[in-house]
C-alpha cells in the first residue's frame, strides 16, 4: 500500500480526534459559571465545602494545567465518574454498546445486501417498475423522520394489531443466566420493530447508490468489450459490474457507521431501547456531564476510526484511489 496515502489519512484521523478532544474540553469551560456548581447549587452548602470541591476537582488551577490534566486522563482511559450512577463512565458505556449494535448492525448489513440486489435489478431493467418505485420511494425515504416511522409502526403493529410489544427490550423477569434462550428470543422479538424501522429507511439509499453506480458502469467500454466476447449475462454482472459497483457502497457504509455506533438515538428513544443513544439522551437530560462528554467522545473517536479503516479498505480494493 502507498505509504504516503496511509500516512496522510492517519494524520487526518488523529487530528480530527484531537479537535474533538479539545472541543470537548472547551465546551464546559466556555460556559458561564463553574463546572462544579452543580454540586453546591444548594445555598445551604457552606463555603469551605465549596472551596474543597473546587480544589478536589483541580478547578483552582489555571486553564492550561487543567487542560493538561484532562489530556492525561483521556489517554489513561479515565473519563470520569458518572454523576447519576456513581460508576466509571466507561463501564456504563460498555454495558450499552451490545444493545445498540444488536439493533443497528443487523438492519444495516441487511439493507446493504438487499440494496445491492434491488439496485442491480433496477439498473438492469432501467425505466422498469422496480426502477420507478426505487426512485420515488428512495427520495421519500430520505425525508421521513426515523422516529415518526417508528411511532407509526408501533401504532399499527403494536397498538392495533398487537403483534409486537409496544416498547422495551426484554420481557420483565427473564435473565440471561437462568434461561438464556428464552432471554435471547424475547430480545429478538422486542427488536423486530426497531430493526424494521432502520432497515426500511436505509435500504433505498443503498439501492439508489448501487443503481447509479451500475448504470454508469454499464456505459463503460470494458463492458462492451466483455459483451462482445460473448460471455453470459450472469458472468458479466458478477465479474465485471458488481465488483466495481460495490465500491461506492463501501464509502456509504463507512458514513453510516456514525449511525451504527452512535446508536439510532431517535429510534431508541421511541422504543425505550436502552442502548448508547438512549444513554446519551438520559445523561444529557439529567445533566450528567461526564457521561455525556465521554459518550460523545467515544462515539466520535469510534466513528473517525471506522472511517479511517473504511478508507484503507477502499484503497486496498480500488487501486485508482491509491495511485490517483
Amino acid at each position, binding site marked *: 500500500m502507498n505509504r504516503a496515502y496511509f500516512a496522510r489519512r492517519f494524520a*487526518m*484521523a488523529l*487530528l*480530527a480526534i484531537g*479537535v*474533538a478532544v479539545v*472541543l*470537548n474540553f472547551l*465546551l*464546559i469551560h466556555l*460556559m458561564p459559571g463553574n463546572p462544579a456548581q452543580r454540586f453546591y447549587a444548594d445555598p445551604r452548602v457552606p463555603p469551605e465545602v465549596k472551596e474543597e470541591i473546587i480544589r478536589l476537582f483541580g478547578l483552582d488551577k489555571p486553564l492550561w494545567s487543567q487542560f493538561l490534566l484532562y489530556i492525561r486522563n483521556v489517554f489513561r482511559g479515565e473519563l470520569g465518574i458518572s454523576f447519576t450512577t456513581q460508576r466509571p463512565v466507561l463501564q456504563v458505556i460498555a454495558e450499552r454498546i451490545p444493545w445498540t449494535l444488536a439493533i443497528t448492525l443487523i438492519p444495516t448489513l441487511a439493507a446493504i445486501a438487499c440494496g445491492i440486489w434491488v439496485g442491480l435489478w433496477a439498473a438492469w431493467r*432501467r425505466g422498469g417498475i422496480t426502477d420507478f418505485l426505487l426512485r420515488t420511494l428512495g*427520495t*421519500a425515504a*430520505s*425525508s*421521513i*423522520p*426515523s*422516529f*415518526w*416511522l417508528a*411511532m*407509526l409502526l*408501533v*401504532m399499527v403493529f*403494536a*397498538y*392495533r394489531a398487537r403483534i409486537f410489544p*409496544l416498547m422495551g427490550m426484554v420481557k420483565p423477569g427473564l435473565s440471561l443466566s437462568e434461561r438464556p434462550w428464552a432471554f435471547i428470543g424475547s430480545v429478538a422479538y422486542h427488536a423486530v420493530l426497531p430493526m424494521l424501522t432502520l432497515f426500511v429507511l436505509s435500504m433505498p439509499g443503498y439501492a439508489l447508490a448501487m443503481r447509479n453506480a451500475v*448504470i454508469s458502469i454499464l456505459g463503460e467500454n470494458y463492458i462492451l468489450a466483455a459483451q462482445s466476447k460473448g460471455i453470459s449475462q450472469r458472468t458479466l454482472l458478477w465479474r465485471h459490474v458488481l465488483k466495481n459497483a460495490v465500491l461506492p457502497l463501501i464509502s456509504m457504509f463507512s458514513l453510516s457507521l*456514525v449511525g451504527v455506533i*452512535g446508536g439510532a*438515538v*431517535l429510534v431508541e*428513544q*421511541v422504543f425505550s431501547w436502552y442502548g448508547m443513544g438512549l444513554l*446519551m*439522551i438520559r*445523561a*444529557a*437530560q439529567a*445533566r450528567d*456531564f461526564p457521561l*455525556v*462528554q465521554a*459518550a*460523545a467522545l467515544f*462515539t*466520535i473517536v469510534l*466513528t*473517525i476510526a471506522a*472511517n479511517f479503516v473504511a478508507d484503507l479498505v477502499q484503497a486496498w480494493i480500488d487501486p485508482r484511489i491509491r495511485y490517483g
Partner: protein
Amino acid sequence: MDRTRNPRSWETQGKPKAERRYLRLLRRPAGLFSLAFLILCVVCAIWADAISPYDPNDPGDKDILAALQGPSLKHPLGTDSFGGDVLSALIHGTRVALIVGFSTGLAVPILGAILGAVAAFFGGGMDRFIMFLVDVVMVLPGLPLMLLVATYIGGSYWIVVMLFTFLGWAGVCRMVRGRILSEKAAPYVEAARSYAAPWPLILFRHLLPSTYPLLALTAARTAAGSVLAEAGLSFLGFGDPLAVSWGKMLADAQAQGALLFGAWWWVLFPGLAVTLLSLSFINLGYALEEVFNPRLRYCAHT
C-alpha cells in the same frame, strides 16, 4: 420534443428566455407540488396568528374537556391530550421549521462556495490550509456533537443551524473547489485570460456560475436535512422549550402516550408535515439544478 433528440438544435434558436427557464420548474408534478407546499408553509409561518383557529401559546385556548378528540369540524385535525388544537400547533410549527431550513440552506452553500472558490482560485498555501480544515471537519459526526452542545447551551433550534453550518460547509467547499479547478482549465477561461480580463470578472462571471447547479442542490439538501435534524432534536427534548415545533408536538405525543390512546391524528400530521417540507426542499433542489444546468434540460436524463 424534438430538442431532446437533437441536442444541437437549441443552439441555433438562441438562449431560452429567462421566464421560460423558471417555468420549467412547474412542468414536473413533483416540482409544482413542492413549490405549492413551500409557499403554503411560508404563508402559514408569516400569518400564523391570523390563520390558525386557536392560539397554541395561550393556555386559555385549550379546552381540557375536549382532550384527545379525533378530527371534527371544530378541530379539523383533532386535539392533543391538553385539549389543544393540532392544526393550530401545526401552523405555528412552520415558523421554526422554515427558519432552520432557510438559514442553513443559505449559510452552508454560501460559506462553502466562498472557501471553495478561494482555495481553488488562489491555490498554494491557502488551498492547502482550507483543504486541511475540510478533511478534519468532514469526519466529525453531527449528532453526538449536537447533543453535547445542547446539553451545555440548553435547548434552542439555533444549535441545529450553527452545527449544520459548522459541519456542512466542508462538503460544499470540496465540491466547489473541484468544479472550479476543472473549469479553470477550460478554453473559454483561457480566452478570457488572454484579453487580460480582471480576476474578479473571471471568478464571478465565468467560474462561480458553473457551480450554481451544485450549490442549488446542496442548499436544498442541507435545508431538508436541517429540518429533519431540528425535528429530531426537539423530539429528544432539546429543542426550544418555548417555541411550538413539529418535533416537539411528536415528543409530547410520545410522552403523553398518544400511541396508547390510539390518537393517530396527533402523531400522523406533524410527522407528515416534516416529511413533506423536507421532500419539497429536495424536489425544489432538483428543479433548481435543472434551471441552472442546461445540460440536464436538453438531454433525456434519468
